[in-house]
């Protein structure tokens, strides 16, 4: 019985509009086993899980190839609901709970126990009464099976994070059908002690015969509870081994390791960091950016270097630039060129010669409704009063549309932004070109220090290279200090002089781009 196969995924292929995210993935999962699923961001973990869970995104983007076999039955889920019926449960990272409801109500959400009455016959099922007591009882039972001390009557809004997590799990296993449970980074938001409980819970579920797919960046946990683990990299399954037969070092190497040589590290000589003067001094920086919290960061950025900040998503690397530039509440001390920076004040940061290309192009980076030239010139116009004609002794500051158009044209040529004219609306541009506009906006400010977050996120390969080259060129030509935050390690290694890895909101370590991959992997994962 225990060695019976529950889930078979046979040579799964999936592409989003031409770019392959999963290629020929095969995996198996035995009944009552826990399978650890590890891999960098963008390795295809979530896509794989979405396929398994029948998420609508997959269908909308043209479905997938290959087949899924659950309990010996071929199944192809149209929607998560099919998956649920088939006994696949998933606990997402963001909670699917209703704050004002009790745990019980959430666990039984839309599966309430009801009692017919005459109105049902007239107006339909939805007028049947809820059997609250029984619902609470049953919910309590499934909470107990999860094995945590939590009253089914407590309001979700008053629960600590961990209990929300458990409530979700309780909901999944409450479905009699549930045979397979997908946990997407269940411990990411938990404290050490909470995480411990969570792990024991997962173990117990497995012992009850429920198979679990456990996604986590904490290899400790993987090693601790998983029976087997699967490593994904660039959409390919690189390894499927019993955890006993491996160790964290190996795993991290599998994860980040590129083909022999490990990807193009940076060719040309790396600057002599020691000899360079510090331009940006960061101490005890905390940033409260939802999903990217920075707990406590110290950094010394040298004048004229390209400094890479890497780390897995949600670890806090993006929080650093957003915090320093004042976009999210932050604290600690930041000194730029010897001058102390007022935090939580974008204007101040800009005025003191720093610029920022946000990772969030659509919501922060661009005026989608406005033309390119506005997008490029706005910041510099507002902060440095450039591209304005002054009348009546500066009383009227007239927007100099001609100059703006000229400026825009310069950058359009320089960065090869593909567009009909400088008057084209930003929303009509492709991702790559939008990104270039964002860069142009930052360059136009002529900053001494430039933060770039996820410069190549969601843009095609060609554009990627061009963006990176441009950054490089500006660093070379104008000696602009550049701080690049990216989830793509090899990208960082290809352009940075130094790469810092952020983990759990702290700097785990700073390495030279030429350092062996396993070191990077170790820093990322051994939190």
């Amino acid at each position, binding site marked *: 019985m225990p060695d019976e196969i529950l889930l078979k995924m046979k040579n799964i292929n999936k592409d989003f509009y031409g770019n392959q995210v999963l290629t020929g993935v095969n995996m198996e999962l035995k009944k009552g086993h826990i399978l650890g699923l590890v891999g960098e961001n963008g390795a295809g973990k979530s896509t794989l899980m979405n396929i398994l869970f029948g998420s609508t995104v997959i269908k909308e983007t043209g479905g997938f190839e290959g087949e899924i076999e659950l309990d010996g039955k071929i199944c192809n889920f149209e929607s998560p609901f099919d998956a649920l019926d088939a006994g696949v449960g998933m606990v997402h990272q963001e909670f699917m709970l209703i704050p004002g409801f009790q745990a019980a109500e959430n666990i039984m959400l839309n599966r309430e126990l009801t009692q017919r009455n005459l109105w049902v016959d007239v107006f339909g099922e939805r*007028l049947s009464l809820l059997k609250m007591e029984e619902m609470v009882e049953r919910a309590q039972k499934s909470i107990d099976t999860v094995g945590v001390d939590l009253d089914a009557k407590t309001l979700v809004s008053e629960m600590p994070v961990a209990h929300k997590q458990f409530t979700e799990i309780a909901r999944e296993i409450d479905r009699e059908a549930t045979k397979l449970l997908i946990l997407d980074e269940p411990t990411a938001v938990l404290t050490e002690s909470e995480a411990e409980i969570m792990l024991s819970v997962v173990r117990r579920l497995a012992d009850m015969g429920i198979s679990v797919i456990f996604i986590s960046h904490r290899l400790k946990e993987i090693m601790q509870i998983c029976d087997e683990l699967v490593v994904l990299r660039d959409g390919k399954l690189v390894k499927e081994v019993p955890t006993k037969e491996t160790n964290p070092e190996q795993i991290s190497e599998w994860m980040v390791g590129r083909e022999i040589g490990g990807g193009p590290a940076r060719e040309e000589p790396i600057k002599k960091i020691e000899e360079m003067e510090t331009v940006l001094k960061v101490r005890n920086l905390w940033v409260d950016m939802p999903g990217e919290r920075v707990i*406590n960061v110290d950094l010394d950025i040298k004048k004229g270097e390209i400094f890479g900040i890497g780390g897995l998503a949600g670890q806090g690397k993006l929080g650093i630039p957003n915090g320093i530039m004042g976009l999210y509440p932050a604290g600690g001390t930041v000194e730029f060129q010897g001058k102390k920076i007022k935090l939580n004040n974008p204007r101040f940061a800009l005025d003191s010669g720093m610029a920022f290309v946000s990772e969030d192009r659509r919501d922060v980076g661009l005026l989608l409704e406005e033309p390119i030239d506005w997008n490029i010139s706005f910041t510099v116009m507002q902060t440095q009063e450039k591209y304005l004609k002054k009348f009546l002794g500066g009383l009227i500051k007239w927007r100099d549309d001609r100059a703006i158009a000229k400026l825009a044209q310069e950058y359009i040529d320089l960065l090869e932004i593909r567009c009909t004219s400088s008057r084209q609306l930003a929303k009509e541009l492709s991702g790559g070109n939008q990104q270039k506009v964002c860069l142009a906006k930052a360059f136009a400010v002529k900053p001494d220090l430039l933060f770039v977050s996820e410069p190549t996120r969601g843009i095609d390969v060609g554009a990627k290279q061009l963006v990176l080259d441009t950054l490089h060129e500006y660093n070379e030509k104008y000696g602009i200090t550049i701080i690049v935050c990216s989830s793509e390690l090899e990208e960082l290694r290809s352009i940075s002089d130094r790469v810092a890895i952020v983990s759990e909101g702290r700097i785990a370590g700073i390495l030279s781009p030429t350092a062996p991959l396993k070191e990077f992997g170790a820093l990322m994962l051994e939190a």
Partner: protein
Amino acid sequence: MSTLKSKDNNIARFFINNAVPILFLLFAVLAIPMSDLSIEYLIAEMITRLARYSFLVLALLIPVIAGMGMNFGIVLGAMAGQIGLIFVMDWSIMGVPAFFLAIIISMPLAVFLGWMAGIALNHAKGREMVTSYILGFFINGVYQLIVLYSMGAIIPIGNSQIVLPRGYGIRNAIDLVNLRKSVDRLIPLEIGGIEIPVMTFILVAILCVFIVWFRKTKLGQDMRAVGQNMEVARNAGIPVERTRILAIVISTVLACIGQIIFLQNIGTMNTYNSHEQIGMFSIAALLVGGASVAKASIKNAFVGIILFHIMFVVAPRAGKTLMGEAQIGEYFRVFVSYAIIAIALALHAWRKNKEAEFARRSLRVDTEEAPGTSK
């Protein structure tokens, strides 16, 4: 820390929710002596007005549960009800049968209007209140088209008592002689010279029971879920749009009945005005009762009606004694009716933003001492 936060909110919520009723209570306490109206009179008035408005105000509750805010669309229901009344008047039906017949006639219309309103509001998520308000005006136009121009012309209406002399269109004021107070007086009862509309209160009681019961049904539960978080509800497989539409339909139908009760009590129907103010007054009353856009209870409804209408009755007289001018009081109550809505909405929006901010700050609490904890 999350418990700490919620406790904090409870205190805030207590004050914000009850500030309004307390304010009005004070007003009443101050203004009643000034108006030198006898207590008996006031009590009698309040009883009448409770009978008149309760049903309409209670009709607002269900959309609130579904997170759609104050449903100004109840005027749609009111219009449906009035059309029903026009017909029974035309057929010269008398008394209680007329009352129920009017309800039966107007019900399908109310359902239809509510359904349309629901669809419209699904297209205006987050802007339900303005939209339902404008919707009221829009349908009012259609209502005029029907009642003022096509009734008697296209829709056969014979009774010369209600048709304009020109031969089509309904008169501005219809004397509901047939069913004036017919329900109120169905079970006659008088206490200390004050007439108690027993039957009407029985109907209201039935509605209250219905609402309590409804909250306990699957549909009620779904509405609560949708009201709190549409996304989660949708992911749980609850048909969000449909649920929202149903909420509005129920509300509209109740409003339709409410309007018929309201008019049978008043005894005359101003064909083109009776419904217009209904939405505003009912909502103002409910808010005065301490309800918020996101939370409203039966208690709020009754407390609100009493407080709001004390203000309503007393204001002019008080204005007269205070400013030597009844006019002031007249305007004062218009002012209060709208201001109260403005304030309540503003408070709600403000609190929403504050809570979002607070939630973020609470995150920061544990990061603040982080520098200490590390290294």
